[in-house]
């Protein structure tokens, strides 16, 4: 047999849970599959999903990027300023360039000043948000209402073939990310480095190049996400999406990517993003009060991962898989700590 059941679950488990939820959704929420609602679910999760794709690489390489919330705020603000100054083209260029720049800032702190990624990106989370705050001292940047016809403003609201454009962008990002992770040398190096930085170094993988790549990639993914985000909410300031980093990391981990590095599943991340979004939509449309929404959402998170946890725990013989792959121990000492 080519792959064990466990291997299949690693990649497809969360997708299976998503499908299960989708199967019961119409029963619990009759309105669920109405065109409007389905489109709305797909549209609202795009920006989170796109950043989660980038974050999957960071976590697979064994590091977090805690600064994505600050990056999103900053990219959005700068992009809106770009739009005001030069229309659609400048807005798009500004978002991508800002994302890339943020990523490179993170990468240089980590590779040149040897600041551990956790602290470096925690620091830049404050810095990026702070710069966004400074740029919006006189009030949030917005897409003016009279620009409603501009192609840029439309990105967030348009549908093509019934699918929201932000979702189509997210699909494209995932397709590219999947190829990058599974079919390119760079993606393989990311996994190798995350699995064991020390061994990867002796395979000729340059830790510096690798980290520059990973953090720049996260930055660019935030730049793309910012485009779908601002064209959807039309505004940004320093406070945009407070707590974003935790949501993104949660989606990646829920999808099955290990925080210890070495494993990354984009299919899992994709499904996890939709899972949370669908669940949220169901709770909201059912009119569940927000206090209880939290309780249900948290409970479902635990249940989803319990299935996985129990499978690993009782995989025969003994907890062998953990024993051998080093999941339990610290064997692949990753960049998180460095």
């Amino acid at each position, binding site marked *: 047999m080519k792959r064990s059941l466990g291997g299949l679950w690693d990649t497809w488990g969360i997708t299976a849970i998503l499908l299960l939820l989708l199967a019961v959704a119409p029963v619990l929420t009759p309105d669920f599959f109405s065109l409007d609602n389905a489109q709305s679910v797909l549209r*609202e999760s795009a920006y989170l999903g796109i950043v989660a794709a980038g974050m999957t690489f960071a976590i697979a390489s064994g590091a977090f990027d805690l600064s994505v919330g600050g990056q999103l705020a900053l990219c959005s603000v700068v992009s809106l300023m770009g739009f005001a100054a030069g229309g659609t083209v400048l807005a798009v260029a500004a978002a991508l360039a800002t994302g890339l720049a943020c990523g490179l800032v993170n990468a240089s702190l980590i590779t040149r000043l040897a600041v551990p990624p956790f602290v470096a990106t925690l620091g830049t989370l404050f810095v990026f948000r702070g710069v966004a705050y400074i740029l*919006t001292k006189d009030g*949030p940047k917005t*897409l003016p*209402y009279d620009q409603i016809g501009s192609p840029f403003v439309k990105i*967030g609201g348009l549908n093509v073939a019934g699918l929201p454009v932000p979702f189509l962008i997210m699909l494209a990002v995932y397709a590219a990310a999947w190829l990058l992770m599974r079919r390119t040398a760079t993606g393989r190096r990311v996994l190798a480095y995350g699995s064991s930085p020390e061994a990867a170094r002796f395979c000729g993988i340059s830790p510096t190049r690798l980290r520059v790549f990973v953090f720049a990639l996260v930055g660019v993914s935030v730049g793309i996400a910012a485009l779908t985000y601002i064209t959807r*909410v039309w*505004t940004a300031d320093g*406070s945009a999406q407070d707590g974003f980093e935790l949501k993104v990391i949660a989606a990646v981990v829920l999808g099955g990517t290990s925080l210890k590095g070495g494993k990354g599943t984009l299919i899992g991340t994709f499904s996890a993003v939709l899972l949370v979004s669908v669940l949220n939509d169901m709770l909201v449309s059912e009119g569940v009060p927000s206090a209880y929404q939290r309780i249900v959402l948290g409970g479902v998170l635990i249940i989803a991962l319990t299935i996985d946890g129990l499978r690993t725990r009782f995989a025969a013989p003994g907890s062998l898989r953990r024993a051998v792959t080093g999941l339990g121990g610290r064997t692949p000492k990753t960049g998180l700590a460095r």
Partner: protein
Amino acid sequence: GCSDSNSPSDTPSKSGKVVVGFSVYDMQYEFFQKMEKGTREAAVAKGWEFKLHDEKSDENEMVTGAQALIDQGVDVLIISPFKPSALGPIIAKAKAKGVPVIVDDIGGGGAPYDAIVISDNAGGGKLAADYMAKQIVANGKTSKNVASITCEPSAVYAARRNAGFKEAIEKQGFKVVAELSGNSKAEEGYKVMKDIMAKNPDVAGVFSCNDPMGVAAANAVKDAGKNPVTDIVTVGFNADPEALTAIKAGGLAATVAQDPNAMGALTVKLADQALKKETITFGNAAEREVFNPVLLVTKDNVATIK
């Protein structure tokens, strides 16, 4: 999301019953719980169907939820926006479907809503300043130094309170020696007040743009061995229950009351007028603002505030 809701409808929907959607800022806060209550009760009294959406302090959730209400075919939308500047896409969709939008509190973000009910935030800040100045003098203090605690920088509506306060208190010859943010949070308001007192031992008054920070600052004053009414005149904003309790107990000098319940009821009245295409009387027609008065609450009148 039935197909007929895609066409602009200026008549109440199929059931004959008017459906009103209310998107609320965040039901965690007592202020908005009261606003929701006021809105709901007024709508029900009119025989309308009431649909609630909680934005949970998230602009993405705000846009998604409000658009979903419109998709579900509400006849009129009332929204207390977490981010006023994100009203654009909501109003664009509402316009496309012929749904009037009444904004409650916070701000309108420059979008073409039908009307906004708003407290006079700057005026409230002025009320606080005038009271504080008078009280400092009455307390026999000679210091002209006061402080101001702000919400998070993005809270544009709240900043107007601090701005109104600052302008008015400086007119009275006082100096705002510290203007620091407690990010709307009680925990931070407490720490910031401690820092302010450490740097300016002679500070004679402090204004906070919300009550959680205001009451926290008063606690910090007490913990420093001073009195928040007679030593450092401490004033909040909102008339949250904790502020009223504190004022009664002599633990806070004053607060500025908004009446979220009444604001909610007012939005329903405006919604009705908008549905019936009646003309609305604005307090400030240029911004389509309808003001809801604010009221200074002190020990003298606290008993009359519910």
